[in-house]
């Protein structure tokens, strides 16, 4: 149950930001977060990275907000703890995490989105996870995966190759049988970004 004032504020935000209109620009704080996103995660001895597509989505979103240094610090902390969580799963890629681990990652994600009234939803037809801000604006949308340092394709849990949902067939993911999972760090970063961005807007 949210406070009445929060609801009114949320409605105002919806009304005002009905047209997303924020000036472009990546400030130093946002740059720090992007740099942190580009660092690698060690999965079973192999250095894996967030696909450039993910980092770009963050950059596109950051261009519509203004982050403070406090916010950046907190987001970076969230990224780092997400990386630890991933590294401790013992899996080589997100697809190989056990159902339990995936559930845990999913619920961490949901918890992170809660404070900002942001949402995380999964479309079981397209296999994509979508993160939306309080006003319903999409912040991040992809089939989650990690790529090896030299780039290239990933393999999903059904043995099908996936490019993480870059090239579309119909606007939905190319891989209909994609698994359900979130790259906790990347996503929670974006989520964290939303969190602090929305806070800033309020």
């Amino acid at each position, binding site marked *: *149950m949210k406070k009445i004032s929060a609801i009114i504020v949320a409605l105002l935000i919806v009304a005002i930001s009905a047209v997303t209109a924020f000036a472009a620009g990546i400030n130093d704080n946002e740059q720090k977060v992007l740099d942190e996103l580009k660092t690698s995660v060690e999965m079973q001895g192999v250095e894996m990275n967030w696909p450039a597509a993910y980092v770009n989505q963050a950059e596109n979103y950051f261009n519509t907000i203004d982050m403070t240094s406090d916010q950046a610090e907190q987001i970076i902390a969230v990224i780092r703890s997400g990386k630890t969580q991933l590294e401790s799963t013992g899996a080589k890629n997100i697809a190989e995490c056990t159902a339990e681990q995936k559930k845990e990652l999913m619920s961490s994600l949901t918890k992170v989105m809660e404070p900002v009234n942001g*949402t995380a*939803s*999964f*479309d*079981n*037809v397209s296999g994509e996870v979508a993160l939306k801000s309080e006003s319903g604006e999409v912040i991040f949308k992809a089939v989650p995966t990690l790529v090896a340092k030299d780039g290239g394709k990933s393999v999903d849990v059904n043995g099908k190759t996936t490019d993480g949902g870059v090239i579309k*067939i*119909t*606007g*939905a993911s190319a891989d*209909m*049988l994609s698994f359900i999972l979130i790259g906790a760090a990347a996503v929670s970063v974006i989520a964290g970004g939303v969190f602090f961005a929305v806070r800033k807007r309020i």
Partner: protein
Amino acid sequence: MSNKSVKKKVRNVVFSVLSFVLALFLFMNMICVFTIAYAVNENAWIDLMNASNYYADKTEEIKNKLIVLGNAGGLKPEFFENVVDSIQVTNDTRAYMDAYFHGNDDVIDHTAFRQNFKSELERYIKENNAKADDTNVEYLVDTAENIYSGSLEIPLFKSLSDYFKSVGRIAPIIITVLSLLSLVIVLILLFGNKWKHRAFKYYYFACAGTFLSLFAVAVFITVAGGFQNIVLESRALYNMAVSFGTSAIIAFWAFTAFFLIVSFTLYFVYANKRKKVFATD
């Protein structure tokens, strides 16, 4: 303090505690009744789907998703008018629910859809003399089939299937056990009190406690607006969730009203009996 006073206090405390336990059991019973009647019950879901226009909404959704597929697959939107119809969606959904509630694997039967789609597609290709490669056509049919079964799936079912089934089994048992225990408490209160009006006093406490608890729940879910704030990708499912929320709200207010009436009745019975006792003084 006299022995009798102590005994009296002890008796009061014991009966009050029993009364509290009775109130708790009654409350839990109502929750279980609600769960059985509205949540783990196949008929309840079917009624809900009918009431919230689920099948029509779902058909629209599937059609729109397929039209988007058609944009990439060389098919005009008009093609999909013949491919999805709400009767088919209704039947397949009902079959899915049936299988699910009878403990079978929640598999959606999409063979009928696939056959229909394939034959319509072949007819379309012939009529328009369109270029078509067998592998690509097969891929298109596969994708359409996946869209169809993916759309009919209810995400809640998959993830909650264990809970659903175990609750469905346990709830009736819980109701029976709680009812028996409640009856035992009622009898204890009745026969443990020399003056019968006192028993009614404790019955009143129990029912009043239940009434207030149900009242609190009813107020809570009314203010929370039921399920209006739930996030679901499918509009059909969302409308159904909102319908469910509304009927839950109504149900709980009905329970509240029932216990209010019962509490009042018990109070008056208590008052009358007590009057009679003192009148004979």
